[in-house]
């Protein structure tokens, strides 16, 4: 529990840096900060689900759609205050996550991936089937303005960046706590060996469903943020590509690692823009140039997997330990799908003490 104030302090420092950057940088960078924050929120939830509880999901884009449409509909018809809408969007998506989780808890590996894939493909199509309520292909417009107390000249993109970054930070702090709580330890235990976890008295099914609920709530929040930042909620924005991009970000960053979620999100958001700029500035023909970001994305994914099998976060920790000598705490263990970690919650700290002793 004493770690909580420290995490809050880190979060506050990051918040101050983001606020500072958002004022210093141009408006498009503000927009990118918001985009990154949205991505981080969704990827952090997914990396908990896949990295810690060991369940793969190709349907988190659909959860984002639920959050986004909930937000759009509430703001449009009821005009509720935004913070309330955020909470409701998270709650609605969490409920959807529970339903999916209950079904998914019975499935493993590729079967689970298949079932969540179905969700990712089918759900956004509901917006087309019920065009009256969801606006069909056009989607719904979302009106989001700067609150009056900031004055009329406060840039909207900066306000969007602030809101998104704040939500992302809160999510990260909460997830970091969850990660180190009994719930997080149970997830790891379930991931590594279900039988052993059951023998330790862990309710495996409940732990798996819980992971889905948490990850869905995060995706719902991300969807809500996406709605207010882009000002539009349309099915075209929630295709399967989005779900796969989320999973890619989690893998590139380092599965199960929250800092990894940040690295992965940075890659997903910034690399395409950067590569496009480079491609166009070198005067490539548009048929070649327009496909370069897709190629770069693929190459990057392959490289990261070859060089850093544990993602960017795993690679960074390895580099750090290479420079500073073997890390006494051997932190890599946390991101790697451990060779064989004792699943028991009580033994984990003990094993760490042992390693501390050897250094």
């Amino acid at each position, binding site marked *: 529990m004493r770690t909580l104030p420290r995490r809050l302090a880190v979060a506050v420092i*990051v918040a101050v840096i983001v606020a500072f950057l958002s004022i210093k940088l141009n408006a498009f960078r503000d927009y990118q900060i918001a985009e990154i924050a949205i991505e981080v929120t969704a990827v952090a939830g997914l990396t908990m689900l896949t990295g810690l509880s060991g369940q793969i999901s190709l349907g988190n884009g659909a959860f984002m759609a639920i959050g986004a449409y909930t937000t759009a509909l509430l703001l449009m018809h009821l005009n509720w205050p935004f913070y309330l809408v955020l909470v409701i969007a998270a709650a609605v998506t969490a409920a959807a996550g529970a339903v999916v989780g209950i079904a998914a808890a019975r499935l493993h590996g590729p079967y689970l991936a298949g079932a969540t894939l179905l969700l990712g493909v089918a759900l956004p199509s509901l917006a087309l089937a019920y065009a009256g309520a969801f606006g069909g292909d056009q989607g719904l417009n979302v009106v989001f303005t700067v609150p009056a107390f900031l004055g009329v000249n406060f840039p909207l993109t900066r306000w969007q960046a602030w809101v998104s970054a704040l939500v992302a930070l809160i999510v990260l702090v909460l997830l970091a706590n969850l990660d180190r709580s009994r719930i997080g330890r149970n997830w790891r235990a379930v991931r590594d060996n279900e039988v052993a976890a059951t023998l330790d008295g862990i309710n495996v099914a409940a732990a798996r469903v819980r992971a889905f609920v948490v990850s869905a709530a995060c995706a719902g929040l991300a969807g809500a943020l996406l709605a207010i930042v882009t000002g539009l909620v349309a099915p075209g924005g929630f*295709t399967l590509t989005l779900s796969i991009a989320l999973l890619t970000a989690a893998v590139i960053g380092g599965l199960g690692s929250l800092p990894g979620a*940040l690295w992965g999100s*940075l890659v997903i958001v910034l690399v395409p823009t*950067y590569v496009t700029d480079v491609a166009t500035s070198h005067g490539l023909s548009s*048929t070649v140039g*327009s496909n370069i970001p897709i190629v770069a994305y693929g190459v990057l994914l392959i490289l990261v997997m070859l060089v850093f099998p544990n993602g960017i976060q795993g690679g960074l920790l390895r580099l750090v330990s290479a420079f500073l000598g073997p890390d006494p705490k051997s*932190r890599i263990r946390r991101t790697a799908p451990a060779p064989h970690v004792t699943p028991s919650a009580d033994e984990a700290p003990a094993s760490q003490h042992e390693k501390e002793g050897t250094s």
Partner: protein
Amino acid sequence: MKKSQRIRWQAVAIMTSALLGVAACSSSSSSSSSSSSAGSSSAALTASAPGITPTTITIGSHQPLTGPAAPGYSEIAPASSAYFAYVNANGGVYGRKIVYKYLDDGYDPTKTASVVRQLVLQDNIYALFNGLGTPTHLAAVSFLNAEKVPDVFVASGCECWNAPSTYPETFGWQLDYISEGKILGQYIAQHFKGKKVGFFYQNDEFGQDGVKGLDYEIPSSMVVSKQSYVDTNVNIAPQVAALKASGAQVVVSFSIPAFTALLKLDSLKLGYNPTLAVSDVGSDPITLSGLLESFAKQGGATVNGDQLTNGIITDEYLPALSSSDSWYTLFKKIHDQYEPKAPLDGNFFYGMSVAYTFVQAMFKAGRNPTRQDLITAIEGGLPQGPMVAPFAYSSSDHLGVTGAYMGIIQNGVVMPQGSVLTTDTTATGPITTYSGSEEQAPASGIPSASS
């Protein structure tokens, strides 16, 4: 455990700040490059508006260079670019060179929102030019108007761009889909009396506007089935089967090229061969022929694309691709010089024509234009240029061209049928024969400043 967490969080803090530092550095590197060019006459050229320097005019666009709408449409922006390169090499606009930056949105509205913000907030464009697609551009239109960026000649015939009070910065260009539906509909009603008609349309403003126009002209007693598709789902077999089951002898299609091709191929598979009438945006014969051949190849069959497009009825608001036309001669010359590898088809013609209209508007906006000057210039009306019918631009009408002629595709070319027809978007607005003549392409290939 506590110690380890401290290290972990210190690492996070360090990495975060390092990362933010990188972000800060990268932001300062965006500045527009300028090239020197000799201003020709009196008043000095100034940086009169965002995106305008004494030597350049920077404009931007969002285009589907990848994704479902890319086949065909991805040729448009390079064609516009080629025309701008021609203008730049021949004196530019009052000596300024046009810098055209178009970004790929993959026909995904979320991505459109992002790239348009990049163009406006970072690349500091003077105007957004020819943003392509109805669902995509809808994700950008509010933002552009809030930022007061001219949003000119949207590459979509949605009636939604014609809202001068809510979207004062936005202008359409091509024939709107309602008018198109009316002109197509009248032709069908006159030439296929007593036949059964089916509709096939993209389920968004594009297709729905088109159907609205068709319904104004085709008596509902003739219409036996209305089927729609969404551009994210290429399986249209059920819709085609329903059209066949309804016994429709004529199918009118408001579809993008890829789905026109799928409609044709799926019909063939079912041994169903109705007369096809396809709206302008989905009927370019060269694009269609290429798509038909490549789709058939994917399915393991060989077809002759030109043969399959034979007999498709369509409408067209640009002159026919024939060597006797002055615009064709001009655009072919520019094509051969600047973009020789691109197919010289309707999409290329479209990109050239819309670029021509833009250059015309920029000349009219004056030597040192503000953004408002461009809006005022367009609202004052523009000569029709390559279009077959006049523009209707005014302070209360932001739609674009007002008419088209009917045509039938034969051997990969649209053969005009009858004269140019003009109309409006209302249910009762008459469809009249346009009596004016086509404008001839200027010898220089560049619109003159005085017109």
